[in-house]
């Protein structure tokens, strides 16, 4: 590498440090912070995967295998809390958002670099509190990641620690959200209007608004549970006139928008990858941009569909059911736009594109089963069964995580300056894709037949479904391990990547890989749309202009 990258030099918050580790953990460079998040997140991802595997082993036969019933409750809570609060919610925004958002809009950093580092510190603190509660007192919370009252206010396990952790993680998320919104409003390169921003930035923008406006509601809800548990104000305690259903409402007012918070940046990733590998301008740029904003607005108004069987007036049910159907429309718009972009394009099936195509299949299943669950008559039957578990994982794993894997392959050369091994990465994709479907598809059937979720034991007739799932789990995990191996191997042995190995158009591909500190030697003037291709070749090449005078 001829240029100095952000790996070689950095800005730190407390002046200069000789120590390499201090140069990382006190770095206020958005790219280093992205990598800090990535390290913590994947450590926890690995833990949560192993917990999930343990549960699958437990369920391989009916009866007790390796976990006691109480441990099983703690295991699925731990799996849920880590995956939701420490992995999927922060996932794409914290890693790819931090790394790419400033570059994509032509900025040198985010608006508040020190606040950005502070968010990571909060994130780490929350993670440590969550994990430490495993080892003290009665162990990790056993409530499920939703902490439903009144059980959460009564159980002896360390619910307070888990709630505190979730609260702190929420604060980290809010601060990141504020940082991103301000960055997008203030630091776009001159000339770049809102409709000249890359679609990933649009996804982050909608996400950041949800982070700012919805997260405080869960914050206060978690505080209320803590207050309820410590001094007993009675808000969620029926013995004192409180109403536990109110907790469910407050919880889902945040947590349903939170699922869009997870998926919107992932949609943004797809909107970047599709035009690049189809070598053409994306179809319906504005409709994709606006549908992100629409999803985040309508997403606020659908939380009630989590409470269909908890007791709600018929009118409320019908309204929430209708709104839930309605929110699938902007999502559908995006899917049709992507497919229209691919239609008659000369698609290059590199690994990122392969992941995207795979996701379109799995997420479509995840999304459409969601519509099934929003149907009032059917949901009574399917509520709290494996059908919900399967739907949720098709949407979250088959949607968000697959798209995150796509992002890892797509931006890999930009992050590390080298290429991964294309063939091996494709093998990893097929392992995970097949394993994933073997793991979760049987759960749809088991759910329809009446297998309840979160049960540690089951009737013998469900054995076959659990065993197929178990096999799928092993295959999925091996695939993930293999993918990790391929990506890590590329760090050392991969070919050196050029600035723009995919022939992509957005700004991050107009600077060196890996990017230098402060990204742009000269800020470019942007007076064109982000996905301009002519005859399969990017129209604008700003590399020389940006690096002039180096």
């Amino acid at each position, binding site marked *: 590498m001829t240029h100095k990258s952000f790996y070689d030099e950095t800005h730190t918050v407390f002046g200069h440090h000789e120590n390499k580790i201090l140069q990382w953990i006190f770095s206020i460079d958005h790219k280093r912070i992205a990598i800090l998040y990535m390290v913590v997140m994947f450590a926890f991802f690995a833990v949560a995967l192993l917990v999930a595997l343990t549960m699958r082993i437990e369920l391989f036969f009916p009866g007790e295998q390796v976990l006691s019933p109480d441990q099983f409750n703690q295991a699925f809570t731990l799996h849920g809390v880590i995956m939701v609060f420490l992995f999927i919610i922060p996932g794409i925004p914290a890693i790819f958002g931090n790394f790419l958002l400033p570059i994509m809009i032509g900025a040198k950093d985010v608006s508040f670099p020190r606040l950005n580092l502070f968010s990571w510190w909060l994130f780490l603190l929350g993670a440590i509190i969550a994990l430490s509660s495993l080892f003290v007192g009665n162990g990790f919370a056993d409530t499920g990641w939703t902490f439903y009252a009144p059980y959460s206010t009564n159980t002896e396990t360390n619910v307070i620690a888990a709630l505190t952790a979730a609260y702190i993680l929420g604060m980290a998320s809010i601060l990141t959200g504020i940082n991103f919104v301000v960055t997008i409003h203030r630091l776009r390169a*001159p000339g770049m209007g809102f409709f000249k921003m890359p679609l990933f930035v649009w996804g982050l923008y909608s996400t950041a608004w949800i982070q700012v406006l919805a997260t405080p*509601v869960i914050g206060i809800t978690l505080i209320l549970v803590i207050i309820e548990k410590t001094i007993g104000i009675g808000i969620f305690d029926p013995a004192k006139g409180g109403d536990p259903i109110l907790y469910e409402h407050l919880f889902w007012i945040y947590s349903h928008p939170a699922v869009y918070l997870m998926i919107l940046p992932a949609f943004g990733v797809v909107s970047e990858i599709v035009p690049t590998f189809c070598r053409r301008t994306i179809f319906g740029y504005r409709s994709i941009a606006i549908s992100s904003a629409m999803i985040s607005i309508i997403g606020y108004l659908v939380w009630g569909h989590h409470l269909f069987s908890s007791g709600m007036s018929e009118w409320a049910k019908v309204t929430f059911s209708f709104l839930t159907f309605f929110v699938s429309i902007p999502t559908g718009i995006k899917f049709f736009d992507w497919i229209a972009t691919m239609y008659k394009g000369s698609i290059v099936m590199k690994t990122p594109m392969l992941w995207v195509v795979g996701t379109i299949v799995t997420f479509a299943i995840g999304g459409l089963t969601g519509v099934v669950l929003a149907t009032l008559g059917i949901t009574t039957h399917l509520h709290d069964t494996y059908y919900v578990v399967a739907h949720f994982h098709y949407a979250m794993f088959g949607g968000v995580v697959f798209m995150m894997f796509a992002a890892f392959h797509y931006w890999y050369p930009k992050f590390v300056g080298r290429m991964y091994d294309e063939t091996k990465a494709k093998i990893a994709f097929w392992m995970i894709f097949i394993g994933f479907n073997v793991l979760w598809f049987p759960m749809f059937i088991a759910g329809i037949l009446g297998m309840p979720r979160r049960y540690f034991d089951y009737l013998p007739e469900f054995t076959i479904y659990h065993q197929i799932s178990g096999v799928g789990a092993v295959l999925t995990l091996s695939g993930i391990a293999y993918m990790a191996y391929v990506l890590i191997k590329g760090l050392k042995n991969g070919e050196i990547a050029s600035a723009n190995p995919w022939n992509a158009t957005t700004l991050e591909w107009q600077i060196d890989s890996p990017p230098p500190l402060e990204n742009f030697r000269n800020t470019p003037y942007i007076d064109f749309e982000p996905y301009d291709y002519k005859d399969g070749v990017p129209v604008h090449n700003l590399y020389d202009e940006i690096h002039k005078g180096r």
Partner: protein
Amino acid sequence: MDHSSEIEIIYDKQGNPHEVIDFNDDDEGSKLGFWFFLFTELMLFGGMFLVFTFYFYRYTDNFLEASATLNIVLGGINTFILLISTYFMGMGLINFKNGEVSKAKVKIVLTIVFSIIFLTVKYFEWMAEIHHGIYPDSEILNAKEHGIILFFGLYFTMTGLHGVHIIIGIALMVWVILLMNRGTITTKKYVIFENVALYWDLVHMVWVFLFPLFYITGLGR
């Protein structure tokens, strides 16, 4: 970070100059960010107000009855005290913008004094309730009707949360004075002061809603 204050200018194809905003020195951005932070505060208190509304409609009679037992005189005095403190905060900001630094500092100190008076009055109010055996999970309170238990549960939670914000506010004001002495906040660059003043506005606005909900609704019972 010592980015000297040279402004980066770039040119479009027609040769028109455009200023690139320096991410290290962007007061507009800082203010915008703080507004977004205030939105999160609104949503936080909004969640509490939602809970209050819900139980107010479920137990209207109990809520009105309990509200009548609160000391409206002390609550009213406190409202005035907080409004006066906000007045001083605003005047302080105007003084500072006009370059009258020491006047501004006096105003901030006055704001702090009034906030402390507010907290003291609040302390005596709480103490009176607690003396009567009315505090969350007390035997006397738990023996009362459901709506009354919830009213006082919310009363202590919401005024407590508001009190925490007052304490944070006092700390921020002390910090602002320190930064003025250190020269970080100057009459040219005072966005931190502006943001703290905005924060103080939020804190008093929340009280302006808490006061009628808790104290006035039961008036005349």
